[in-house]
């Protein structure tokens, strides 16, 4: 199981994301100018302030060559996790429904919150228990740190998303830090293989940080990929496969070595 973490100008959480991924598998950095995912089994679009949040958060990063490749990967069923700014990027790239707006309190919020697993069938939450079970494990303690985290989608769209199980994580009652519609903390696309999450599971994946609950998200991804078997990613797709992906790399784009 190999994760790829995309680094953009202005990313700042990619090292923690790598660390979290490496607790459950292998991981390497991908570079935003590179339209080549190097055959990874899953992609993480990390948090940060890509392109200085110019114009709208995530709007410029959504146009990068790496995101074109991530879009193809997602359409073929590959797992894509966007965290915080990564969530914003995935919305701007239209790989996820909705948009993120400035927090209702107009403040940058940095604190721990509890989130509830509302869809434990999701490939990003299967290692956790659904909160409806009442068992421990349905509630994760993870930090948020953002200014633009208020999830918005039209009401009819929200109803449809809930119906389809696309609301995977919710802030626990009374803990919504940003005014998100229906306390939504994490949503998936219709197919379920792309997830955006405003809180940071990668910052809570190591017991050293006080909570390792966020590790369940990465563990869920690992289980999903490994259950699908080694030939799963890109199988049957004409556009992308692990076997051909490596050949597209023209080099010369200043690709940083994997940390």
């Amino acid at each position, binding site marked *: 199981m190999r994760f790829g973490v995309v680094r953009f100008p202005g990313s700042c959480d990619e090292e923690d994301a790598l660390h979290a991924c490496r607790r459950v598998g292998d991981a390497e950095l991908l570079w935003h100018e590179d339209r080549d995912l190097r055959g990874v089994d899953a992609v993480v679009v990390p948090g940060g302030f890509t392109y200085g949040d110019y*114009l*709208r958060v995530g*709007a410029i990063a959504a*146009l990068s060559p790496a995101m074109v490749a991530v879009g193809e990967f997602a359409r073929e069923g590959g797992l894509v996790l966007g965290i915080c700014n990564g969530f914003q990027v995935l919305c*701007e790239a239209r790989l996820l429904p*909705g*948009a993120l*707006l*400035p*927090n*209702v*309190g*107009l403040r940058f919020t940095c604190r721990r919150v509890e989130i509830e697993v509302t869809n434990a069938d999701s490939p990003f939450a299967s290692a956790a228990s659904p909160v409806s079970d009442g068992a421990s494990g349905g509630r994760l303690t993870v930090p948020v740190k953002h200014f633009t985290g208020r999830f*918005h*989608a*039209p009401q009819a769209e929200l109803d449809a998303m809930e119906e389809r199980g696309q609301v995977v994580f919710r802030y626990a009652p009374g803990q919504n830090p940003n*005014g998100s519609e229906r306390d939504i903390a994490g949503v998936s696309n219709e197919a379920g293989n792309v997830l955006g999450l405003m809180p940071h599971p990668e910052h809570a994946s190591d017991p050293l940080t006080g909570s390792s609950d966020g590790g369940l998200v990465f563990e869920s991804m690992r289980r999903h990929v490994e259950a699908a078997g080694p030939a799963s990613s890109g199988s049957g797709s004409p556009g992308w496969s692990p076997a051909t992906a490596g050949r597209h790399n023209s080099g010369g784009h200043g690709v940083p070595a994997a940390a």
Partner: protein
Amino acid sequence: MLIRPKQGILDPQGQTVERALPALGFEGVSGVRVGRLIELEVEDPGRLGEICERLLANPLIEDYEIEELSGAAGPAATEDR
């Protein structure tokens, strides 16, 4: 391009401005919405709508208006979306 939050979208920045005005003695101001103005020069004004839809605005949360300030057409034309 004049870009602003869509009707029905909560605009806390607009609300904050609205609440600040009475402190300066400006009573009776309501419906404040804060948006942004983007100026640009284009060779083909016909593509402005597409430019807004694809990058400058997010149509899910923002409305935009295009105002052509000068050009071969003569008087300024305003296009509402």
